Structure formats: C-alpha cells, structure tokens
C-alpha cells in the first residue's frame, strides 16, 4: 500500500487566510467591498432620511453644508446627501453585478465554443469579438445609449453589450491552453460529449482567472456606469446614482462642494476596493497554480 502523509495538513480556509495575510492591501480591499455590500443591503435602515433617496423635497433646508444633522450636507432641494449616497451604493453594485452576469453569461460560452470547437466557429466568433474590441468600450456604450431611451436599465444593457468580448477572449485563451492537457484527451478518448468536456472538464480549470477578472471588472463596470450617469445618459434624476449625483452637483461647484465630492469619493473607494481585492486574488491564485 502506498503510504499516506502522516501529518495533518491545514485546511483550505487556513491556507487562504495565510496567503491573504501576506498581502494586507487585498484585505483592505476585501473589507471595503464587504462594508459596501452591507451598506447596500441595510440602506433603508442605516440611512438617516430614507425618504430622501427618491423625490422628496424640503425647500427649508436647501444647500446646507455638512453638519451633525446632515453629515454630508443637503442638496438643491434639501435632501440629505448621505442618504442619497448610501442608496446609490445599491444602484452601483446592482449595475456591476448585472453587467458582469450578462457579460460572463454571453462571453464565456462563446469563448469556450471558439476555443474548443475551432474551425469556422472559431473564425466567426473571434472575428466578431475582435470588431467589438476594436471600439473603445465607453464610446460604444455611448453610442448604444444614444439610440435607446435614457434610463438605468438601458445603460446597464449598453455596458454589458461592450463588455462580453473581454470574457470571450479570456475564455478562448484559457480553453486553447487547457485543450492541450492530457485529461481532455482522456475524456475524448472515452467518448465524452463535447458539452461535457467544455463545461465540466475545461471550465472548472479557468475559475481562478475568471474570478480575478470579474473582481477587477466590477470596479471598472461601476466606473463606466457612473460615467454614463455623469454624462446624463444613464440613470435619470432623482435616482440617486453616484455619477448622476456628481453631475448634478457640478453646476454648484466650487461653493457647494459637498454635493459632488461625497458621491465622487464613494465611486473612488468602491473602485479602489475592487481593484485591491482583484490584485490580491491574482497573487493568491498565481501561487496556487504553481
């Protein structure tokens, strides 16, 4: 009988924590993201004036600077900026999740098909992907939103529309390299179906690079969403979208600085959080792949 290692090895969680500990910035990123998610979920309970997230109007307290009562001040119709920024986190996170869900859902299978099946399928899929990749994403998203009605959902659609080719290319590259591994040949020689090989043999082997890209892209997607909002092509007022908030506050700069600043900070911190976490995950998986 083959001998087994006598010593008990540490569990996966302990290992993950050990690796993470070596990169404290990624822990900062992780905390930021967790806090953001918590804020988004608990928004109605922690926002001091939940009603202000929509179209409430309090003309008596217009343009108040930050104070104990309104830590982030109030806006041009007297709404509490803090409450609006808190509710904005829901929109931004939702935008990121939806965009990436669609992008991965569309891009990943296409990349798998192109990489594994090869031939004509590959040529067609990859040429279309290349065309999409040739146009800068923000420009393409602008073009799409310009055609459609201006609202949050259309802006999500527009961003997802520009995002999927990146996942096609990622999945394509990964599939090409994993296709050469012997275990794929084993499954083929056993007569496993193509679907099985693509989704059960190859796909699980790209989860780590996928996870890293999704995390990094969450930040970028939120940024693009905010940019569209800022340009007035995304969510429309009074929706408390961060980009829209920055845009609305812009005309009162520099005197009423609190209107734009806090929403902008929220964007900054969230994107930073996803980036730090993504970088940490990348180091983490690089080690694991060995």
């Amino acid at each position: 009988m083959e001998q087994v290692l006598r010593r008990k090895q540490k569990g996966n969680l302990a290992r993950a924590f050990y690796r993470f500990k070596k990169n404290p910035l990624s822990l900062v990123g992780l905390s930021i993201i967790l806090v953001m998610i918590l804020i988004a979920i608990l928004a109605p309970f922690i926002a001091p004036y939940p009603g202000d997230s929509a179209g409430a109007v309090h003309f008596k307290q217009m343009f108040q600077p930050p104070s104990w009562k309104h830590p982030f001040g109030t806006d041009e119709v007297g709404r509490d900026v803090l409450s609006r920024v808190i509710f904005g986190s829901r929109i931004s996170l939702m935008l990121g999740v939806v965009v990436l869900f669609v992008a991965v859902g569309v891009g990943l299978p296409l990349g798998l098909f192109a990489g594994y099946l090869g031939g004509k399928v590959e040529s067609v899929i990859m040429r279309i992907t290349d065309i999409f990749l040739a146009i800068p994403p923000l420009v393409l998203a602008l073009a799409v939103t310009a055609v459609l009605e201006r609202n949050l959902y259309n802006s999500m659609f527009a961003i997802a529309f520009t995002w999927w080719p990146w996942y096609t290319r990622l999945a394509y590259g990964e599939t090409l390299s994993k296709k050469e591994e012997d275990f794929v040949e084993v499954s083929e020689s056993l007569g496993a179906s193509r679907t099985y090989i693509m989704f059960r043999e190859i796909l699980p082997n790209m989860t780590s690079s996928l996870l890293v890209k999704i995390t990094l892209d969450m930040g970028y997607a939120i940024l693009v969403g905010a940019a569209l909002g800022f340009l007035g092509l995304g969510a429309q007022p009074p929706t408390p979208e961060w980009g829209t908030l920055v845009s609305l506050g812009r005309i009162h700069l520099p005197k009423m600085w609190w209107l734009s600043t806090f929403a902008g900070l929220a964007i900054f911190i969230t994107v930073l959080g996803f980036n730090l976490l993504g970088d940490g995950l990348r180091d983490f998986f690089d080690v694991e792949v060995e």
Partner: protein
Amino acid sequence: MTVLSIANLKIHFDTIDGTAKVLDDVCLSVNEAEVVGLVGETGCGKSVTAKTILGSLPMPPGKVPDGKILFFCDDLLKLNKHDRHRVMSEKMSYIPQDPMTSLNPVFTVGEQMGDLIRWQGRRRVGPLEFLGLRRGRHNAVAKAVKLLDRVEIPAPKEIVRRYPIELSGGMRQRVLIAMALIGRPSLLIADEPTTALDVTIQKGVLTLIEEKVEEEELSVLYITHNLGVARRLCNRVYVMYGGAIAETAKTKDLLRDPIHPYTCGLISSIPKLTGDEFKGIDGRIPDYIDPPTGCRFHPRCPQLMPICGQEKPELIEVKDDHLVACHLFSRGGGR
C-alpha cells in the same frame, strides 16, 4: 587541494504548515580536478544544495540556521553580496537543467554570449559598449564563435546569428556549456544538464563535458538522479537521501559494493540491460516539516533496528574513502 567544502549545512524553509527542515547537516567536498556526483531522487535536496552554493535560493522563505560553504578560502555564506558576486564570477559557473528556458528567446545566441564575454570579470561596462556602439576590449562575437567551435557545434558562425528557438535541445545545452566555460572557472556546478535530452544526445553532451573537464582541469559538482550518468562521469559520488548524505565513495566502489540500505535499494531499483530482477523501495520520501526522528530513512529501511528511530547516524569511514551514515556500521551498530 579542496576547492569546495560544505560542512554541516542546514537549510530550512518557512511554509504555511510549519518549518520544512530540508537540508540536515550536509557535508561534502570537491577536490581540485575532481568530478563529484551528487546523486539522489526527486526531493532529496540535491538541487537545494546546488542553489545554496550558487546563492540563488530565495531567502526568505529559505534560511540557513547553520553550516559553512568554503569555496577556496572564503565562506560564501559570510561574504557580502558584492564580494560573493566577485568570487563567484571569477571562479564558479553553472550549467542549468533545462536548456529550453535557460536562454533568452528574444536575443540571438551570439548576443547572449557576447554580453557574457563583455561583462566577464567586470562590474560595469561603458555606456557606449553597453548599447553595442563600441566594440569594447574583446571582439565578443569572434570569441563566441571560437567558444562554440570548442563545444563541437557545427557551423558556429551560422549558429551565433540564430535564436535559441531555432536550435534543438542538445544544441542549446552545448551553447550553455560554452557559456559556462567563458570565464575559465575553477568549479563547475551542473544541475542535471542532460535530463531533458534523449539518450543519444545525452551521450554526446556527456562526452563533451568529459573532454572539457580534462582540458581545463575543472572541478565539477555534477547533480543527477541517474547513477549510470554518474558512473560515466564522476570520480566520486555522494548519495543523498532526505536532505543528508547517506553514503559516499569512489563511483566504482559504490556501484559494485554499496553499503547503505538506501543505496542498495536505489541500485536494485534500476532496470538493467541484463534483464535481472529489479525491485523498488517501499514508501515515499520523508515529509520535511515533520521528518522521521533519527535516521530519516528508517521508515523505509529493510534493516531497521531500534536505534534507527532514536539517533541520527553520523557519516563514518568504513573502508578506504568509503563513508556511510548508517547505524549498521556505527559504533553501537550491528556489524
């Protein structure tokens, strides 16, 4: 005269599961104009030993709690970075294991060899020379051609203009040998240079190394897992197991008359051309984080005694130039 002498070298690695005690009192020496083999299986610590000598082991996670590496008169572990670099670049060189990844794919063979020739023994070259605008003291390419000719590469003038990808594995290994010989080193460390090659190509490379060693009166520390290669090339071999030297003797003596149970097992594991029976060794290499107490080979040893699990055997001379670390032969032991 002793060129390299390692005494009681210990290397530890910090890992998530604890400290891996990889090298455990390694002692070995290489004399002038002697080819010494360091033989062992995967994970026995032979490459770690080579890397420690070369100073290419990452520290941390690696650390050296104890030991000496005397190279001529200098303790390499005590020298500062600059002195160590100077000593090594003057007198030591290295042939790596993998000829495929050891050459830079974006430069031609001539450029890579030329750089090495220019930098040899100097800390810096002038900016013009660095940019390739001035020829410098040597005519580097002409020298590279000459070196390639000496390692029996056909049409060396042609080869210097080629990129590594255009050469076969055997050719690349010859280029690497030529590069290792540039500085006229005293000690050559070869880390399994023929493992990636076919036997027919391996034979040519071994013959080449043999010739060069004789011509240049080199001392060589040749690391390999193949006892046949060691027999061909080495005057003396060290057999390593579990991060320690198990046995050392003249190659002929060791192969004809092995003493340590591990060496016996290793030799009897090799399938022979005569078709004689061969058998392996049960069990697996030790876990370095929680190594077996006493002799690290004792859990796999067919001649186990009670003392083996308690005390570490010391390397003792049992015959002329034949040292073994096994309780069967130590004072308190059996025979």
